[in-house]
């Protein structure tokens, strides 16, 4: 009994000292800690936190797409008194009730990369996926002739990011190449699904000229599928989305012909900057567009310098 008392007293002392010298705690709930693109976003978040002098508590879901663990983490952060929360929801609508609770308790919430539908957030920091996907679709259309068959590898269609990218691409591509057939390979942001799907579809349709992808994990899956079937670089054109390092390397080898790069680092960086500003009570713009960069074999040098790939 005595020991327990001493221990808890020590614990209390420890906690008060830490909280006395502690900076504001900003919660950061990421979608994935292992996906190459997400690692760039997370890096941006870490750097912004260091710059702002806030303590970043970063937590990822147990596996990609796990809503329940995100909800749990969200509630824990609110309970622990986070001053603001940056979140990349795995499910736009599913996270809404938790966001509503936090906002009504006066904790600013910044949505990063994926929006929240059904709840207001302090700020939404992301690429305008729909607009960028339209650029992707228009550029992809210039790589094939009207009437050519192409494959589009989708992202998760239960998320706004996946829906907007697909819709933007389809609209712009169909407008420029009305007689082309687009075969879809559905995925939940899983490159293994992309690989197996592309392999199956190309096997059944030898006339596919191009594979466009909703994200670069899909691009790498599609590249592996083509290699498995014995194609060489350039036989079937690849179009990516994200500007991930491995996709840009594949562009240098002649596989990828265009890639609409998101400013991934900026997304995490500006997201946490906005969260820190909101935590201090400053006004934050409700929509921060982090822009994009069209990477082609001609512009890849500029892009690589910009994001620091050598």
């Amino acid at each position, binding site marked *: 009994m005595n020991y327990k008392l001493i221990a808890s007293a020590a614990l209390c002392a420890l906690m008060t000292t830490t909280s006395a010298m502690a900076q504001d705690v900003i919660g950061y709930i990421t979608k994935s800690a*292992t996906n190459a693109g997400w690692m760039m976003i997370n890096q941006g978040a870490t750097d912004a936190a260091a710059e702002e002098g806030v303590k970043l508590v970063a937590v990822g879901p147990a596996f990609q797409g796990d809503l329940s663990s995100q909800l749990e983490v969200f509630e824990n952060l609110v309970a622990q008194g986070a001053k603001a929360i940056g979140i990349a929801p795995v499910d736009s609508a599913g996270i809404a009730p938790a966001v509503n609770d936090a906002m009504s308790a006066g904790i600013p919430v910044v949505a990063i990369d994926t929006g929240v539908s059904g709840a207001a957030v302090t700020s939404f920091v992301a690429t305008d996926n729909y607009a960028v996907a339209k650029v992707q679709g228009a550029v992809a259309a210039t790589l094939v002739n009207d009437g050519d068959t192409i494959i589009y590898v989708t992202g998760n269609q239960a998320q706004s990011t996946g829906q907007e990218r697909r819709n933007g691409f389809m609209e712009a591509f169909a407008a420029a190449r009305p007689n082309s057939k687009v075969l879809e*390979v559905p995925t939940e942001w899983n490159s*293994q699904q992309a690989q*197996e799907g592309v392999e199956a579809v190309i*096997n059944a*349709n030898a006339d596919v000229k191009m594979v466009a992808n909703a994200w670069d994990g899909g691009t790498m*899956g599609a590249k592996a599928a083509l*290699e*498995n079937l*014995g194609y060489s670089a350039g036989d079937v054109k690849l179009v990516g989305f994200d500007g991930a390092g491995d996709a840009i390397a594949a562009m240098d080898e002649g596989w990828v012909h265009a890639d609409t790069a998101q400013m991934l680092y900026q997304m995490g960086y500006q997201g946490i900057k906005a969260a820190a500003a909101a935590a201090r009570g400053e006004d934050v713009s409700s929509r921060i567009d982090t822009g994009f960069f069209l990477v082609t074999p001609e512009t890849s040098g500029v892009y690589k310098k910009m994001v620091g790939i050598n």
Partner: protein
Amino acid sequence: MATPENSTNEKLPLQDKLISVMVRFFRTEWSGAFLAILILGISIELVTSGRPFFHPTNLMTILNNSAAIGVVAGGMTLVILTAGIDLSVGSVMGMTAALTGYVASFWGFPPSLAILTGLGLGVAVGLFNGTLVAYFGMPAFIVTLAGLSIWRGTGHLATNAQATPKLPELFDYFGRFNPFSGLRDAYKAKELDGFAATVGGFIDDNWINFFRTFQMSMIIFIIFFILLSFIVSNTKYGRYVYAIGSNAAGARQAGINTPQYTLMTYIVCSASAALGALLFLGRAPYAKSDYGQMWELDAIAAVVIGGTSLFGGRGSLWGTFMGVILLKLINNGLTLAQLDTFWQMVVTGLIILIAVGLDIVRQSRDPEAVRKLFASIGAAMAFFTLLTPASVFLRAKIALLEHEAMTQLLRAGEKLAMGQNNRLLTPNEIEKFQEAISITLVPSLLFSALCLMTILVIFKNTRAFTVIAATIMLVAIIPLFLLDYQVSVPFLILGALALFSSLSIQTVFERAKALNVA
């Protein structure tokens, strides 16, 4: 399945032979999964255009992509046969894949040594899991649930969750390498003459149509299952696995060293997961520690779909083989059929239910259960026929209702979000939907009645009633043509066939008993 009822005396031997073949088929554990594969394959064949679904290259693609998860599920089968479970296989696969690639890329291990490291890791994990389960008496579920987390975390930690560069060529021999490619290249370089040139030419001509997808993945996959099923059915080890699974205490009393054989089984399972990792690396763009997520669930699903009991002691490796192929076939086929993503999820679940349902009916050996199954097929077919007019009817009705609700909201002064705006209709669209409703109302009602009738047949087993329902189904083909719904004709024919054959099931069962094969 429908055996002729009014067969003459000299035809009887043939009929008896058919019955005994059928009985033997349904006695095998894999028949449920096999039937589901067949049904799914035929339905995909019907809805896809272009190259047929049963084309060899497509089947080989499915086998290639089943290889990695298949080998993992093969190891899992043994564990489940001993009434155990291994939830860590997905994580072990991911960790092995990541570390094998990592030591090959960054530590300068020669590829062969890296591969041995990977397999060694698998054995070590199996030793760890198996010792805790077999010698310390910890529940397999808990040990491997902990392993699920430990090994995934270890993989991430060791490699920092970063992807490796492209792996050395030796890894291709576990995956994308094509044994015929050398011959084809030599032919194209015109290095061959005589018979070899003829063979090379044949390969080159049929490259896209056949040889392209003949790859190491599927070869290793098939050899692995042949070897493992030989071991299970022909060695002491195999017999003990079944013995431990059906009655562990009895096995111990019979003098079997159960801890030792349990430990061996966990080692085989983890080593299979490691081999699965190598097969996966042979087709993947790079090595990474997040491979194999949720594979434990897919592997367990494949084992159970293949007719192996989760309580141990009953099941077979070939059942698992069929189970894996069914799971991959669902992905492959539904993608080829370009079915909407959300429908794919629903259909995937339904197919798994069908496979397991077939297996339960098979095990029950009860003629009434089989009759109910056939009647259900009839009802499902009537339902599909109903869907053709009813889906149009419902869609139009719902669109009008949504339009109504949205106008109400607007009138109340609410602002509509972007997605909700889509639900407002133009006057032109409203007219179109109203017309669709008036056209489809009567056929929807008629086929609803037919559907209800077939559902009654499931629960009410009278000969006359079944005959009437089946006849109405056949007669209904005429209005179907008049209404321009020819697409559903096959459904009605199939449904009537199922109902008619449900009549002869009792006879077939009695005959089978008389033949003393059942």
